[in-house]
């Protein structure tokens, strides 16, 4: 009998099933478990059970959510924040877990560090108590975020009970227009599916546009899969993937790497594999996108105007639009390009890799920012690379602050916050109310678009700015 053609997702999933229950729950083996400062609840649960950590060798700690970015001297920061880092240090030390702390040259945001260190590989199952774990799917890994109870379960057993999600293939074909990046593609995907449109699904991103993306771009795309409600996002590994991974510290070496590549090539979905849902986007139709509201699906091309709730037929949606405009301090029918900003933030696991910084620096080169802003590289490695290329100078010369690696103003846990009412052009992933501090107003966009906004002090069509320079 010929085996059923399988999708990438199913191949990776099937390879991890330890036990399958009749009711549809599978016990899944976990290859990599990342823990950050927020994992203290789970370590507390482990301690309460008096249990040991099952696989310290597959568990990796990263300091990112709370780390200070303007100083590395812990005695100079808020003791409550320092305590979060100390707890992680104590927990990882007690259980013999490798920790990337802020003194480690490889430290950074967990979803940047994993790929950089070659801890993230095709065909692995990866979990972390963080929803943007979906990022690692860019390598063809099965990667998803979990809460503290499940983190505790993985700590104790290195497994997780999971129901197989449905499969959604998002095919994106065609060439991207100049000035349009993976972030715009991702925001277009969210706008097309809705912020809960892919709930219960694993998204596989396919098509010529996706194949042409660099690893950095693919990471951005999978990072935002969660903002469409998906459990995870995945991209079949290919030569781009292998080229990125070769020589990474924790990746297989020499002939082992080549043998691994053979296995990884076979992970791509079979011809005729069936998806539960299919969706398509035309890359050529995607323009630079910004969000105007309080959810990533509240997104529009930069040349559009804010929606008018009186023209929205669905009453629940109309109520949402009205409340979102009110919170954001905007009026219906306002041109997005007229919206003034107070600050820019370039960073986060969505857009703080080297390519992102290059794109932002290309816009800022020889220009001044008219608003203050923060540029936080995704990791120590990205920071060193950027400095070697002179990008830090470009940012500084433009008047922006060049700081250390961490989650920083994406979530503000370390104190990098907006003031109430302040409006930020941000390369992050969530424009939720208060995400960047109480009363903060966030507009999501690509790094180049954030840089353009910094130059003009308002949401700006990057393409017009480019023309201006000629």
């Amino acid at each position: 009998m010929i085996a059923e053609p399988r999708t990438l997702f199913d191949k990776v999933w099937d390879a991890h099933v330890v036990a399958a229950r009749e009711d549809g729950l599978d016990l899944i083996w976990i290859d990599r478990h990342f823990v950050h400062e927020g994992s203290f609840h789970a370590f507390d649960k482990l301690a309460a059970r008096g249990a040991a950590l099952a696989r310290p060798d597959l568990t990796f700690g990263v300091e990112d959510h709370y780390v200070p970015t303007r100083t590395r001297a812990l005695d100079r920061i808020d003791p409550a924040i320092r305590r979060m880092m100390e707890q992680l240090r104590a927990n990882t030390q007690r259980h013999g877990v490798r920790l990337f702390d802020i003194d480690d040259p490889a430290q950074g945001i967990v979803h940047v560090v994993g790929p950089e260190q070659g801890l993230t590989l095709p065909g692995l199952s990866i979990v972390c108590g963080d929803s943007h774990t979906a990022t690692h799917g860019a390598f063809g890994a099965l990667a998803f975020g979990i809460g503290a109870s499940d983190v505790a379960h993985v700590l104790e057993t290195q497994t997780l009970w999971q129901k197989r999600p449905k499969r959604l293939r998002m095919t994106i074909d065609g060439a991207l227009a100049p000035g349009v990046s993976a972030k715009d593609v991702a925001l277009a995907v969210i706008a097309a599916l809705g912020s809960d449109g892919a709930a219960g699904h694993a998204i596989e991103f396919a098509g010529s546009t996706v194949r042409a993306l660099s690893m950095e771009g693919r990471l951005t795309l999978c990072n935002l899969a969660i903002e469409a409600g998906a459990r995870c996002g995945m991209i079949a590994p290919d030569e781009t993937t292998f080229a990125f991974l070769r020589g990474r510290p924790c990746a297989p070496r020499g002939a082992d790497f080549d043998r691994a590549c053979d296995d990884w090539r076979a992970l791509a979905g079979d011809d005729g594999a069936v998806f539960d849902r299919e969706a398509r986007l035309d890359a050529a139709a995607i323009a630079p996108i910004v969000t105007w509201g309080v959810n990533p699906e509240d997104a529009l091309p930069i040349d559009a105007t804010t929606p008018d709730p009186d023209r929205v037929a669905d009453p629940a949606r109309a109520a949402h639009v009205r409340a979102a405009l009110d919170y954001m301090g905007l009026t219906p029918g306002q041109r997005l390009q007229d919206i003034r900003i107070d600050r820019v933030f370039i960073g986060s696991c969505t857009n703080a890799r080297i390519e992102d910084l290059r794109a932002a620096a290309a816009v800022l080169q020889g220009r001044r920012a008219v608003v203050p802003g923060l540029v936080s590289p995704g990791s120590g490695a990205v920071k060193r690379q950027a400095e070697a290329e002179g990008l830090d100078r470009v940012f500084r010369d433009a008047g922006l602050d060049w700081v250390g690696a961490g989650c920083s103003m994406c979530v503000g846990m370390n104190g990098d916050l907006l003031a109430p009412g302040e409006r930020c052009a941000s390369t992050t992933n969530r424009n939720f109310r208060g995400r960047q501090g109480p009363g903060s107003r966030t507009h999501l966009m690509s790094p180049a678009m954030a840089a353009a906004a910094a130059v003009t002090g308002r949401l700006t069509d990057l393409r017009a700015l480019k023309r201006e320079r000629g």
Partner: protein
Amino acid sequence: MRPFTIHEGVACPLPLTGVDTDQLIPARFMKRSRAEGYGGYLLHDLRFDETGAPRPGFPLDAPQRAGASILVTRRNFGAGSSREAAVYALVDFGVRCVVAPSFGDIFAQNAVNNGLLPARVSEADAERLIAALLAGETRARVDLETCRVALGALDVAFAIDPVWRARLLNGWEDVDLTLSRAAEIAAFVAADRTRRPWAIPQRP
């Protein structure tokens, strides 16, 4: 885990779309230990202004909603971060069931892990329930055996994954179940070592 069979209590309307985890508990409160209780931070910035005074008209703080244990809201409740603190805030406040047309996946999993029922209803039924509450109804009855919510004259069906339903009804803890599979896990690990030799991280 405390089993969930039938729950009757005060229901509160939350006529908002996409109440995300940053609303359920703002990040700045997550440094605290669970032992201190997270209930006071539930929906903090929607409930309280910058000075900490209650915002007038927020449904959860209306006198007739005192002791609310059932929330009825719009689609995409709990979208966003994996922070289980969002569920802790609800549970510590006393909420036992959230009724909505859709939930963030990770939130729903976290809810079930803590004995909180995410009950999925159609958008039309959510609107009818919210309207009845806004018109003055206060109590609801949630029956997980029959998967129905009764509120005033309304009696609507809700959906929940059967596996989650069984877990909530029985109050099962996952980890004990897993530990009973130790032999299967060991067999998997042994076979996997030859099947996927590249899966073990190299030491730099």
